[in-house]
């Protein structure tokens, strides 16, 4: 280390400023600039300081407590000091720049602290974070002031909600709870602020706010009432319990309603009354509650319990006031006795009377009431509630009341006249009702009802009744079978045939009058007999046919028939063998004896009459008549000429009859006979002879009387100039016979017609007829086989009893007089017969035309036309009727009760 390096000279060199300063100084410079920039910026963004004076700033800490607007921090408390006079706490708050423009004189500040109330828990977050100051201002920048007065309570619209601010005024004990909700139809639409006693101490007032948009619900017709809690009242109006919700039960609350339409919008800060309940709120609409009341006295004759202070005073249905006091009143001088009367003082609100505003003062109302009293208005006590027995005062119009007026001078108050009270004593009425119920004959009623029910059950349980539907059904079935049978359908033909026969019969009867003188007519008849012998040549053939028929009949199961008939005969024998039946001939004999005696007398009379007739010149007339009859017989001979053809026709008919199914018929007849046998065997049938005997007895008695009367009549006839009339009648008959002979000339044609009829008859479906007959017999069999038919004899004997009674009645009644009159009528009838004989020829002609018509009818008979169609329709109607009856029967069978219950 010997060669040390030369010492390095250190020569300070004067260098420039840039060379002497390190670049590193940029860093502090930069830091300084940044710091300054940040400081300046924060200073720039720093808002103004405002001072808020609070009564109480508990929990407010400088540099910690925030100022919040809508729960967002917009400032910080910088200092907490006192005002100059130490009466308030002054809080200095540094506002954020961005809201400072809006914090104008309208701004409100309050301290938010945790609060637990019936409305819930508020400000829970402040428990942890500490209290904060809430500010509220509008959204319009305004003039800035540095000093504010803080609110001790949160304002109503703490959330910045807009709405209508009103003042609520409550009287008495209606609760205006601070912060209680205002509910409209169950929805909270507003809030009540802090309540305070009004200046005069009579009411409680609170600010309230109805939030948008519900503020439009409030108009000057709106009424508020208290809904808090629940109320139970047992008053004149009955028991009432009323509460709206549990929430309002705890916290209280009011609600409102616009009672009438057409209210005007209200100004901010309008004052509303809060009523005790909805009823009074509604009642207040038409009434000025605040108006002065009219005080009246009322003295009632009845001194009864139930009227109390605050009882309503009603005019009609409107409550117009209330009772303010109730006292007794003794006024011997005025009423003349020492009775204690009920004197009530009533306060009437003129507004409730519906008077106009200018009449609301009591004087005008008194004058108005006085006019009403002069027209009959009276006060009376009425029952307000039958439950409580409470009374109320009712002002009522009493028609025809004595003239009266309000006694203005009486006592302390004007006195309203009264009338009789209308007090319902509910206990007495109820007792009367119970007594009446008690005295009802309930036991007897029950006994009767039980008996009735027993009878009904016996009636329903009766076997006969149970069988009745079955019987009815059988009956209806039988009727249907009968109606539906071919026999019924063949009825029109039979009817027309019967009509023809009827007309023939009539004609023959007419001829029969001539037979009284047969001797004279025998000649003509012999001629007719000759003609008949000619005609009888065809008879052997007919006989053969009949023999065949007989053979067939022989082949029939006649044994059965005979056995049945013999059984019938046996029954009949037994019947006849009965004592009554044996007595019957005796009775009949006696009756006949009587009749013969009577008839003998009558014949004697008749003989005498005829003698009289003979004596008169009747014979000549008769001879004339008989000659005419002889002529007639001649004509008949001619007419008989057509008989052989007729016989042939009959032969054909017989042939046809031969072909008939007589076996079936016989079987049916056998069955019928069997049934008839059963019928005859019945006891009733055995009783029948007795009934017949008694009936015959009656009849005999009646006949005796009648015949006696007849004989008397005949006597009378003889005495009178009847013979003359008879001769005239015989003359008429003679003329009639002439006419007949004239008419008989048309008989051949008639025979031809009959021939044609026979031909038609030949064509008539006898087979069907036989079948119909068979069906008819079946029906008849079924009919006889029914119980009803078996009961027939009994009915018959009952009918005979009835007949006997009738005969008794007849005998007792004026039969004789009636018979007299009858015979007088018979005389007149004889005259009529004479005149009728005149018209006989025309009658014959008519008969001829009828026969032609009949022939036409038979020829043209067609089931589809004319009568056939009508008959078919009629039968269908009958069938439908039968069907209806059948369905009725079925319905009855299914538901027999319907007979009883009508359904």
């Amino acid at each position: 280390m010997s060669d040390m390096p030369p010492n390095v000279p250190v020569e300070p060199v004067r260098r420039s400023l840039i060379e002497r300063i390190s670049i590193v100084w940029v860093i502090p410079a930069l830091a300084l600039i940044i710091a300054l920039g940040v400081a300046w910026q924060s200073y720039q963004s720093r808002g103004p300081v405002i001072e808020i004076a609070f009564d109480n700033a508990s929990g407010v800490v400088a540099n910690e407590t925030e100022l919040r607007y809508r729960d967002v921090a917009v400032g910080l408390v910088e200092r907490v000091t006192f005002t100059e006079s130490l009466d308030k706490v002054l809080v200095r708050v540094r506002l954020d720049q961005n809201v400072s423009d809006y914090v104008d004189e309208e701004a409100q500040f309050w301290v938010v602290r945790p609060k637990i109330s019936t409305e819930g828990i508020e400000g829970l977050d402040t428990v942890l974070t500490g209290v904060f100051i809430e500010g509220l201002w509008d959204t319009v920048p305004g003039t800035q002031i540095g000093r504010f007065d803080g609110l001790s309570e949160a304002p109503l619209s703490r959330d910045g909600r807009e709405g209508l601010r009103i003042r609520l005024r409550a009287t008495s004990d209606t609760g205006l709870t601070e912060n209680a909700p205002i509910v409209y139809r169950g929805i909270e639409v507003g809030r009540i602020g802090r309540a305070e006693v009004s200046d005069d101490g009579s009411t409680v007032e609170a600010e309230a706010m109805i939030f948008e948009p519900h503020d439009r619900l409030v108009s000057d017709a709106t009424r508020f009432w208290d809904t808090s809690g629940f109320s139970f009242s047992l008053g004149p109006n009955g028991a009432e319990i009323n509460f709206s919700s549990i929430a309002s039960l705890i916290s209280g609350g009011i609600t409102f309603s616009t009672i009438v339409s057409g209210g005007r919008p209200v100004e901010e800060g309008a004052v509303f009354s809060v009523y005790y309940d909805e009823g009074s709120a509604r009642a207040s609409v038409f009434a000025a509650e605040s108006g002065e009341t009219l005080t009246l006295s009322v003295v009632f004759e009845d001194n009864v319990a139930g009227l109390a202070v605050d009882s309503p005073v009603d005019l009609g249905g409107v409550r117009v006031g209330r009772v303010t006091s109730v006292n007794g009143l003794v006024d011997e001088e005025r009423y003349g006795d020492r009775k204690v009367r009920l004197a009530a003082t009533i306060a009437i609100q003129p507004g409730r009377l519906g008077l106009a505003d200018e009449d609301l003062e009591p004087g005008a109302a008194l004058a108005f009431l006085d006019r009403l009293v002069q027209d009959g208005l009276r006060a009376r006590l009425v029952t307000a509630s039958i439950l409580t027995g409470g009374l109320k005062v009712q002002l009522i119009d009493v028609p025809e009341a004595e003239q009266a007026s309000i006694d203005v001078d009486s006592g302390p108050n004007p006195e309203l006249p009264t009338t009789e009270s209308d007090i319902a004593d509910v206990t007495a009425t109820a007792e009367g009702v119970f007594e009446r119920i008690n005295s009802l004959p309930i036991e007897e009623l029950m006994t009767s009802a039980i008996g009735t029910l027993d009878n009904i059950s016996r009636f329903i349980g009766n076997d006969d009744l149970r069988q009745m539907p079955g019987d009815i059904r059988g009956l209806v079935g039988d009727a249907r079978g009968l109606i539906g049978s071919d026999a019924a359908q063949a009825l029109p033909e039979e009817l027309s045939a019967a009509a023809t026969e009827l007309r023939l019969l009539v004609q023959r009867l007419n001829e029969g009058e001539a037979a009284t003188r047969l001797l004279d007519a025998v000649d003509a008849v012999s001629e007719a007999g000759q003609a008949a012998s000619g005609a009888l040549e065809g008879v052997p053939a007919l006989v053969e046919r009949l023999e065949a028929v007989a053979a067939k009949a022989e082949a029939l199961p006649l044994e059965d028939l005979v056995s049945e008939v013999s059984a019938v005969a046996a029954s009949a024998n037994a019947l006849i063998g009965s004592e009554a039946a044996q007595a019957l001939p005796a009775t009949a004999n006696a009756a006949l004896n009587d009749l013969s005696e009577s008839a003998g007398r009558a014949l004697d009379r008749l003989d005498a009459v005829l003698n009289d007739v003979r004596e008169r010149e009747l014979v000549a007339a008769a001879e004339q008549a008989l000659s005419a009859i002889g002529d007639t017989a001649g004509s008949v001979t001619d007419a008989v000429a057509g008989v052989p053809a007729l016989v042939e026709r009959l032969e054909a008919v017989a042939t046809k009859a031969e072909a008939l199914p007589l076996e079936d018929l016989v079987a049916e007849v056998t069955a019928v006979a069997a049934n008839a046998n059963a019928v005859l065997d019945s006891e009733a049938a055995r009783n029948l002879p007795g009934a017949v005997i008694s009936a015959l007895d009656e009849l005999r008695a009646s006949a005796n009387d009648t015949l006696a009367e007849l004989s008397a009549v005949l006597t009378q006839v003889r005495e009178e100039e009847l013979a003359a009339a008879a001769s005239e009648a015989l003359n008429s008959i003679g003329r009639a016979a002439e006419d007949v002979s004239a008419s008989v000339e048309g008989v051949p044609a008639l025979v031809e017609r009959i021939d044609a009829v026979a031909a038609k008859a030949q064509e008539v479906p006898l087979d069907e007829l036989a079948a119909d007959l068979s069906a008819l017999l079946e029906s008849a069999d079924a009919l006889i086989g029914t119980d009803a038919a078996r009961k027939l004899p009994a009915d018959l004997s009952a009918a005979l009893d009835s007949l006997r009674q009738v005969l008794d009645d007849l005998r007792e009644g004026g039969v004789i007089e009636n018979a007299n009159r009858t015979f007088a009528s018979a005389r007149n009838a004889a005259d009529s017969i004479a005149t009728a004989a005149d018209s006989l020829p025309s009658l014959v002609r008519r008969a001829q035309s009828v026969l032609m018509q009949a022939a036409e009818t038979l020829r043209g008979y067609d089931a589809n036309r004319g009568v056939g169609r009508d008959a078919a329709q009629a039968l269908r109607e009958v069938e439908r009727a039968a069907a209806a009856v059948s369905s009725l029967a079925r319905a009855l069978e299914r538901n027999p009760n319907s007979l009883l219950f009508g359904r």
Partner: protein
Amino acid sequence: MEIARDVTSAREAGLIACRRCTRVWPAGTEHCGRCGHAISSRDDMALQKVWAWWVVGIACYVPANVLPMLHTRTLVMVEENTIIGGAVELAHHGNWGVAIVILVASVLIPMGKFAVIAGLAIGVRHGTALSQIRRQQLYEVVEYIGRWSMIDVFVVALLSSLVQLGALAAIAPGPASLYFALSVICTMLSAQSFDSRLIWDPGTVVDREARRKELLEARAK
């Protein structure tokens, strides 16, 4: 180890050392022949750099202590603690050990560093009573311990990333953590900027007695 009182410096020996690879070169060499680093016998700007970083570091240290270091939010409360406030609170709860550790690591050491660096820098310019060896030891201690100051920031970062329990609890770094980190960094840079060779230059050790006499003489004049 006893170090001799009279130490010949490299400069006095006409040598120059590379500060990166510590190779010694003859005076006048511009660049290290081994690592290529520019070399000079003394860094003329060293004290300026020291002071510049020092100022920034101490400026950052103020908000680091004023502003909250931790932002702790639990279910029921939100808490913001400064460094000292947190330590005091811990001490209130009886955690003296932890409180002392925090105070030492976050307050005592940074403050000591500031003081040591400032003292070294002043001593180089105006002389100091401390011997050169003591100052060299101080400088080494400062440089060594500087990096550990970041442990605060490290703890905050660790807590912030671990305690994120949703609504129950959450820890977030406060603004002070940033300033604290900046302060530590600037302090480290300041210490590093200090050219420890200046300690050994003559004239930096002041004899206090002689100095006082000088001053008295000057006053007497």
